[in-house]
């Protein structure tokens, strides 16, 4: 797994460096890092959810479509959330439970796009004794165009 080789897959490592619920400040930006989206990473993601549409794999076909070339599936932001954040990002805290997400899509990400992320916690609250954080996120390509924007609700580990 080419992309996993350069990525720390042990989320326990550096766990003590990540902010817990008490230390997360709504409104404060999260640190992010640019990420070059490869065709290989898109194809691996497609395989994991059974995406088999030729617009993701067949360049000759993709050129005949409205997009004029290969694109990534809209839900590629699932990968981008982790590839565009550093190891001490609190989204990696073991025990983080995803409660739901909403995403809006503007233009597709494409192979070799250099993706950047603007992200922050937007809100935090306690409900039924559980510690929630709302996070919002906008992904851009190298031209500054919005690819997609989204909001998520996670239950934080105690």
């Amino acid at each position: 797994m080419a992309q996993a080789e350069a990525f720390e897959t042990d989320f326990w490592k550096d766990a003590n460096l990540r902010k817990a619920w008490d230390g997360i400040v709504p409104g404060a930006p999260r640190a992010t890092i640019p990420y070059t989206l490869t065709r290989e990473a898109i194809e691996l993601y497609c395989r994991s959810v059974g995406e088999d549409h030729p617009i993701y794999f067949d360049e000759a076909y993709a050129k005949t479509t409205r997009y004029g070339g290969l694109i990534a599936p809209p839900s590629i932001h699932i990968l981008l959330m982790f590839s565009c954040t550093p190891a001490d990002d609190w989204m990696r805290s073991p025990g983080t439970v995803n409660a739901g997400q909403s995403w809006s899509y503007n233009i597709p990400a494409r192979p070799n796009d250099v993706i950047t992320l603007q992200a922050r916690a937007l809100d935090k609250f306690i409900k039924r004794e559980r510690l929630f954080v709302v996070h919002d996120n906008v992904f851009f390509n190298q031209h500054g165009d919005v690819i997609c924007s989204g909001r998520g609700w996670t239950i934080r580990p105690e």
Partner: protein
Amino acid sequence: MTTSFETLNAGDSIDGPKFAVSRESIRLFCDASLDYNPLHLDDDYMKGNFGKTNFGGIIMHGMNNFGLISRMLTDWAYPAGAIHRRLETRWVKPVKPGDTIQPTGIIKSKQVTKNSRWVLIDVMVRNQTGEKVATGEAMVEFPN
């Protein structure tokens, strides 16, 4: 018959493909998404309690549901020249290895705005016993 904005009606359904969940499919999603949360990998960790919840073993990523719903929507929209514009989901029940899940959608309404045409869709994912594991809403644009 190709889907078109004009011929769609509230109550029309969209069926996504079934997806067999296994330890291997969950591990593949870890590698593809870079989400290596031990919720999805570590049996010993999952013996513990999470507040009031005990999952009893590793669980599938909630976002795997999201990816399956998104796949259903794009596979439905592309042949019609339509564009998947929004998806909101909530996870209702954990999904575990051995489950088989399937996304579906039901057209809720259509709306025309100044510059385009929109279809609103209720989406859900059910497991092999028919239980809802995820619900949500989607918007697909049919450009003029």
